[in-house]
C-alpha cells in the first residue's frame, strides 16, 4: 500500500474495471459506504486493486434471488474505514466464480463456506473441499424454493436508502424497482414455514 492509494475511493479504484453499477451509500442507513456490481471475470483484478490499496476482505455472502445466484463481497479498510459491497450475479445453471484466494488468502475459507451453502464453484480455490458441512452431503442448505425467491431490487433497492448512483451501465436494470417490489407470495411461503414458531413469539 502506498500513501497515494490509501485514500483512493473505490469509484476511482474500480473505474478501469467498468462496473455495471456503482453507488455511494449512506452508512447510517445500510452500514455501507459504497456498493458496486461487477462481472465475474474482473473479480480477481478488483481484488488485487483493493488489496494493493489496503483493503481487506470481511466476508463473502451468497444470496439466492429470482435473477440467479449472487455473491456479495464485503471489503473494508483499516486506515480509513468505510465498507464496500461488491456484488456479482451468476447464472443459476452454472454458478461459477473465479477464486480470489491467491490474492486475499483469507478468501479460501469464505469461498469454501459459500460453496457449501449455495453450491457456487470457485475455480482456482486451492482446497475446494467442504469446510463446514460433511463431505458427501447432498444439497445446499441456503438455496431457496422457487416460490420463496425475491427479486434483487426488493432487497437492495428500497425507498429511503439515500444512495447516490455514481455509475450505471446502459441496460443495467437489476436494481430497477420491480413491479411486485413486495411480493406477497414469498412472504406467505416463508410465513407458513415458521408459523408454529412465530405464534409462540
Amino acid at each position: 500500500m502506498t500513501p497515494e492509494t490509501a485514500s483512493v475511493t473505490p469509484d476511482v479504484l474500480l473505474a478501469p474495471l467498468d462496473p455495471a453499477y456503482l453507488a455511494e451509500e449512506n452508512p447510517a442507513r445500510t452500514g455501507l459506504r459504497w456498493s458496486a456490481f461487477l462481472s465475474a471475470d474482473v473479480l480477481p483484478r478488483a481484488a488485487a486493486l483493493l488489496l494493493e490499496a489496503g483493503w481487506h476482505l470481511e466476508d463473502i455472502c451468497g444470496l439466492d434471488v429470482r435473477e440467479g445466484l449472487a455473491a456479495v463481497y464485503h471489503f473494508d479498510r483499516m486506515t480509513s474505514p468505510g465498507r464496500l459491497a461488491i456484488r456479482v450475479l451468476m447464472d443459476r445453471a452454472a454458478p461459477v466464480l473465479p477464486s480470489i484466494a491467491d490474492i486475499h488468502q483469507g478468501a479460501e475459507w469464505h469461498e469454501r463456506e459459500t460453496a457449501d451453502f449455495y453450491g457456487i464453484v470457485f475455480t482456482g480455490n486451492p482446497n475446494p473441499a467442504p469446510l463446514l458441512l460433511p463431505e458427501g452431503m447432498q444439497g445446499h442448505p441456503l438455496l431457496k424454493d422457487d416460490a420463496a425467491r425475491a427479486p434483487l431490487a426488493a432487497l437492495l433497492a428500497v425507498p429511503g436508502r439515500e444512495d447516490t448512483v455514481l455509475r450505471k451501465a446502459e441496460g443495467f436494470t437489476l436494481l430497477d424497482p420491480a413491479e411486485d417490489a413486495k411480493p406477497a407470495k414469498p412472504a406467505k411461503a416463508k410465513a407458513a414455514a415458521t408459523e408454529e414458531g412465530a405464534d409462540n413469539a
Partner: protein
Amino acid sequence: MHSTETLRSHGTACPATSADGGCTDDQIAGDGYTCRFEQGARPESLILNMGPQHPSTHGVLRVLLELDGEYIVRAEPVLGYLHRMHEKMAEVKTPAQFMPNMGRVDYLHALAWNWAYVGAVEKLAGIEIPERAEYLRVITCELNRISSHLLWWGAYLLDLGAFTPIMYAFDDREMLLDLLQLMTGSRLTYSSFRFGGVYTDAGPAFVQGVRQFIPHLRSRLPMYTALVTENIILRRRIEEVGVIPQDMVTRYGASGPVARGSGIAYDVRRAEPYSVYDRFDYEIPVRHEECSMARYMVRMAEIEQSLRIIEQAIESLPEGEHMHPKAPKPSFKLPAGESYFAVEGARGKIGVWIASDGGKTPYRVKLRAPGFSNLALFAECARGTLLADAVAILGSLDMVIPEIDR
C-alpha cells in the same frame, strides 16, 4: 488438484490406497481430509492429526500437520465439528426468535453478538434506543469482554502447561458472572439485548456490585503480571513465536487483538463508532512485536481499558427507560432493505448483514465471525515453527470454535 465435484461426491471414504502412496495396511485409514493431506506430503514426513479431541484445541478443532522432525512443514485446520447452521436458522425465525442464537455463537462474548444482531435490526427498522439502555449495553458488553479475556488468559496458560493461573482467573470471573446474571438472567449464553433497549434495568445491587468490582480487579492485575506475565518460562514459550506481519493481517482480514498485536490500531469502536463509545476516554492498546506475546499484552491492557470505560459509564449512567416506549413487539416485521452492523468483540470485528424483503423472517443473514478470519491465517503463520509452538500460536489467536463454525 481435485475438482469440487470429486471431493463432494466421494463421501468420507478414503480415496488413497497403499498402491498410490496413501494409507498403508498398518495404518488406520483417515477420512478424505487426511488422505488428501497425506498425498501432498514428502516421503520422510510424519503426518499428525491434532484434535478434535486434543485439549489445546478446546474440544472441537482439528488440525492436520505435516512434520519434519518437530518442525511444521504444512498445516491445515479442519472445521465443522461444531457447525450448527445459524444462518439458516436466522432465515426461518423472526428476529425476536433468533435472539437466543446470538448467545450461542460466541459463548465467551455473547453480548457482543447480541449487539451486532440487534444493531443490524435496529438500523434496518429505524428503531430508537434510550440513552440509559446504551449505557447499560456498554457496561454489560465490556464486563463480558473482561470475562472473555480472563477465561482466555487462564485457558491459554493451561494450554502452555501452567495450571494455577486459571484458578485465579475463574475466581475473578465468577464475580463478573454474578453481576451479569443480575442483568441477563444467565451466566454464559446471554441473550438479553432487545430491539429498542435491554431486557432488565440496572438495580442498586448491580450498580453497587460494578462499583466494587472495578477496584477489586485493578488490585488483582499487578498480581497477574507478577505471577505470569513476567514469568521467564511463559516469555520463552511465546515471545517471537507466531509472528504475524501486517500484510498477513490484511490478506486474511484478521482483526481484534490479532491485528492490534501487529501494530494496527484498528478497533470497530473507533473505526466505525456505534452507541455511546465516543463519550468515554479510553485507549486502544497496540503492540508492535507481532508475536504471541504481543497479542497477550494487548488483551491484558484491554482489561484495564474496559474497566476505564465501565467506570465512566457507571458513574454517568443516565436515568430513564431501559426499553424505548416505542420499541416494537416481538412479532414485528422487518422492513425491506439491507443493513450491515459491526461491533468490536473480544476476538475482533463481528459483523451481521441482514437482507430483508419485508417478509416475516429475514431473507438472508450473514454472520461475520472474527475468529474465522483469525484462525484462517494459522496455516501460514505456523509454517516452519515447532509443534509445541502450534499450541502457543493457536492459543494466542483466542479462538472460540462455535463462533468459527457457527
